[in-house]
């Protein structure tokens, strides 16, 4: 805080009018007490001094007298008393209602025009209010309050009929209470409104609600009671879908694994290929193909002359072999016929010489 104060001090030092800037513009937003700080710029002013200066400045501007530090404490005390009284009132009202509901209904006469219990409670509260107000003004008004009270206490009427005085005082106090009841209950309500969430938060920090729910709550039973259909009816699926980033989901899918487990065979079995072909415009597809270019590419890929050479060579070779084999068979047939006519056993077909070719030799 002291640092903050010095910062304020420094800032104001920058705005000290010197030399070239004699006139300070009127539209400058000034921090409270700025004038005082400027006036005392050369002094080593503490934060307390600055506050005091602010207070003085405010006093001078408002033209009203501010309450002394003692009076602020008194106001706080008064507020606390009011809140306590409100709390007490709320509790007492609830208690009285509860008691009244349990008690048997008596005659109207017995209760009288006014409930003495309520009157007494109101009186007590009124006294509390008064005490609060008294405490609030205690610092300044001790002397003012003491004198009349003493005078009032030594009044002959008080001595004469103390019972009546007490009853009258009680009615007055009750009236005071009634007058300020609404304000006090409102104060107590706002106090509880800010207090209860804090208490709940503190409790939640201390208690493991999840474990507690697991231990104590039969979640299955609750789930069984839930009407899922009704919940679904209330869910805006389209809005949910709009919020889903499909692309990101697809990017995270393991497509290979998906493809492996995909029942392709089943799907293929169910596809009516004939129907697909019927609906396909083959002519349009063919029109889009550059058949000439494709044919050129294919021919470039294939060594057509070599293919023709090899295939024709194979054909010629097969033809020649067929002719040779036919010749061999015919030779054998003729030999057998001649041998049979000449009644010979067999022919000497193996030529003489060492280098006669055999079937095992290489070509």
């Amino acid at each position, binding site marked *: 805080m002291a640092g903050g104060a010095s910062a304020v001090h420094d800032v104001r030092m920058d705005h000290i009018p010197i030399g070239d800037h004699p006139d300070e513009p009127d539209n400058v937003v000034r921090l409270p007490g700025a004038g005082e700080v400027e006036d005392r710029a050369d002094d080593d002013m503490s934060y307390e001094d600055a506050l005091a200066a602010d207070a003085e400045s405010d006093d001078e501007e408002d033209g009203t007298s501010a309450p002394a530090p003692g009076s602020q404490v008194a106001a706080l005390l008064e507020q606390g008393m009011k809140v306590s009284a409100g709390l007490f009132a709320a509790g007492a009202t609830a208690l009285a209602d509860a008691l009244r509901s349990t008690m048997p209904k008596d005659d109207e006469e017995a209760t009288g025009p006014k409930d003495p219990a309520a009157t007494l409670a109101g009186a007590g509260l009124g006294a509390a209010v008064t005490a609060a107000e008294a405490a609030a003004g205690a610092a300044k008004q001790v002397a003012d309050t003491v004198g009349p009270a003493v005078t009032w206490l030594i009044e002959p009427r008080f001595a004469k009929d103390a019972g009546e005085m007490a009853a009258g005082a009680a009615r007055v106090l009750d009236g005071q209470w009634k007058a300020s009841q609404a304000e006090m209950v409102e104060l107590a309500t706002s106090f509880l409104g800010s207090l209860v969430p804090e208490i709940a938060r503190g409790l939640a920090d201390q208690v493991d609600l999840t474990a507690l729910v697991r231990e104590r709550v039969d979640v299955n039973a609750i789930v069984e009671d839930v009407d899922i259909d009704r919940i679904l009816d209330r869910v805006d699926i389209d809005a949910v879908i709009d919020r889903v980033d499909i692309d990101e989901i697809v990017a995270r899918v393991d497509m290979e694994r998906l493809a492996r487990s995909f029942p392709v065979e089943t799907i293929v079995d169910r596809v009516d290929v004939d129907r697909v072909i019927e609906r396909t415009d083959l002519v349009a597809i063919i029109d889009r193909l550059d058949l000439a270019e494709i044919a050129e590419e294919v021919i470039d890929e294939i060594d057509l002359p070599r293919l023709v050479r090899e295939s024709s060579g194979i054909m010629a070779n097969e033809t020649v*072999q067929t*002719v040779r*084999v036919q010749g061999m068979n015919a030779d*054998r047939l003729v030999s057998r016929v001649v041998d049979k006519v000449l009644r010979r056993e067999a022919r000497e077909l*193996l030529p003489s*010489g060492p280098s006669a*070719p055999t*079937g095992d030799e290489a070509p």
Partner: protein
Amino acid sequence: MSGAAATSARAFPAGAAERQGLRAGVVSRTGAMVIDIAYVAMLVAAGYAAYAGFRFLRKPAQFTFPEMTMTEAAVYGYVVAVLMLTMSWTGTGRSGGARLMGLRLLGPAGARVGLVRAFLRAVTCVAFPLGLFWSAVSKRNASVHDVIFGTSVVYDWHDRVPEARTDDAPTS
């Protein structure tokens, strides 16, 4: 070579491999002779066309096809045939027809035929082609020319050429 031989042997049709090197019969040899005659005829015709072309180029204005009687053609054919057969037999041992039919001419020791023997056999073959048909009767599938020059014609589909033989002396 052994691998290539195995591959070549496998490429042979059924019954062909085991008959390689055996003396060939009359039908195959006649086929080879017919093909050779066709070759010779084509060569004669080609020579005639070449001569005609030469005449045309020399005197185009007075060009007429050269006259050639059948006798002249036959003489040319004989000459061409003798030259062709002599060169073939001394070289690879087979003429064009014999190559097509898978035949090869071997000398007395199973080697290549010498030049003199080849020339004399060629002259004999061209002069007396019917001597070929004796191979149908011969026990060793030998034609008249084979008997005279001690040669033999075998089935040989391989491209390998047998060793040359220096002995040109014809035997019985």
